[in-house]
């Protein structure tokens, strides 16, 4: 007898708007979930533990060129120079000031400056691919970087990640903590990517995609993308 193993096939599940912004944490098409996602029901915490203040980061957490990934080395990195900016808001739409935003990404060829990345695409000696900043008084962040390339991964046959920038954010509360990925509009790889599609509500999925922003585009210098981020503090209903 053979047992059907749902993890052997790349599966893009159909849309499900009832999930809203929740990511489906046991999404079977993303194989790494299999042995890592907790299987038992989650325990609950009293309300005050959802309202704990979180850590506060100051300017001392930053280096001078941390928000410009194109100027961290002697030369300029190869690739399409871009500016990525937006606002960090809480669920009520209020700006989160002084929020630490950390990003990391592949270079223009789709290669990370990381020893585990074996993709045979060139490293760029002028690109580390990491940045950080604090949001300003209006909750704004801004990075100058290069547009990352798509890259292959071992999830299934001929699997490629759509180009993305990883984001990590700290809000005001301990529970206002978000790690996510920003994607670029119109990527032809969206429909094949189980990580992107693990957000099964199509409208929520769109919240992961930046908007091309001609108004912020700097003539003769860099294209601009705008991406606002909303931090959740309330617990998932289980």
């Amino acid at each position, binding site marked *: 007898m053979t047992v059907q193993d749902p993890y052997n096939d790349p599966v893009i599940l159909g849309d499900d708007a009832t999930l809203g912004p929740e990511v489906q944490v046991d999404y079977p098409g993303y194989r790494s979930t299999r042995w*890592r996602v907790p299987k038992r029901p989650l325990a609950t915490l009293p309300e005050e533990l959802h309202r704990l203040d979180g850590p506060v980061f100051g300017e001392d957490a930053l280096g001078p060129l941390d928000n410009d990934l194109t100027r961290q080395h002697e030369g300029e990195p190869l690739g399409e120079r871009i500016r990525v900016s937006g606002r960090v808001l809480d669920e009520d739409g209020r700006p989160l000031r002084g929020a630490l935003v950390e990003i990391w990404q592949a270079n223009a060829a789709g290669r990370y400056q990381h020893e585990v990345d074996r993709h045979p695409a060139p490293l760029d000696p002028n690109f580390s691919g990491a940045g950080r900043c604090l949001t300003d008084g209006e909750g704004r962040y801004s990075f100058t970087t290069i547009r990352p390339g798509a890259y292959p991964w071992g999830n299934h046959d001929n699997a490629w990640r759509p180009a993305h920038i990883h984001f990590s954010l700290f809000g005001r509360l301990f529970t206002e903590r978000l790690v996510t990925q920003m994607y670029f509009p119109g990527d032809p790889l969206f429909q094949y990517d189980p990580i992107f599609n693990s957000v099964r509500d199509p409208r929520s999925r769109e919240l992961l995609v930046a908007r091309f922003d001609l108004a912020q585009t700097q003539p003769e210098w860099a294209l601009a993308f705008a991406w606002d981020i909303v931090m959740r503090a309330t617990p998932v209903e289980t």
Partner: protein
Amino acid sequence: MTTPTPSQTVGPFYSIGLCRRPNDELDPDGVELSGRLLDGRDEPIRDGVVEIWDATRRKWGRSGTDGDGRFRFRVAREAGVLEAFVFARGLLRHERTRIYLRDGDDEVWAALDPARRGTLLAQADGDGLRFDIRMQGDHATVFFAH
């Protein structure tokens, strides 16, 4: 209410962005708290990140896991209980747990299944404390909705 931005996995290459500088000493004179992050086959998770928060002392720390799945902090022994998040490739959203440095005497501890709450208690290990995090299995760590 504005719709929150969905979560996505930290991925396997987070260390270039999140671990550029060490952030694991909440109390440089404190006790070592270390442990292994393990998957459902008891294999080490080599690409995980553990973040802890001593809410009383307002001290925060972060440790990536090494080739053995091990994370390491230095914390105040008096801290009692630490809040913790776990991130890893394969986790589309981070998980929340708590690390009790000594037997729990709070409301959360009292409400937990006595057969499982021991997974939240750090064990004496030489001069330090040991706290393994098991994502799945019979001895899976208790995780909390968040």
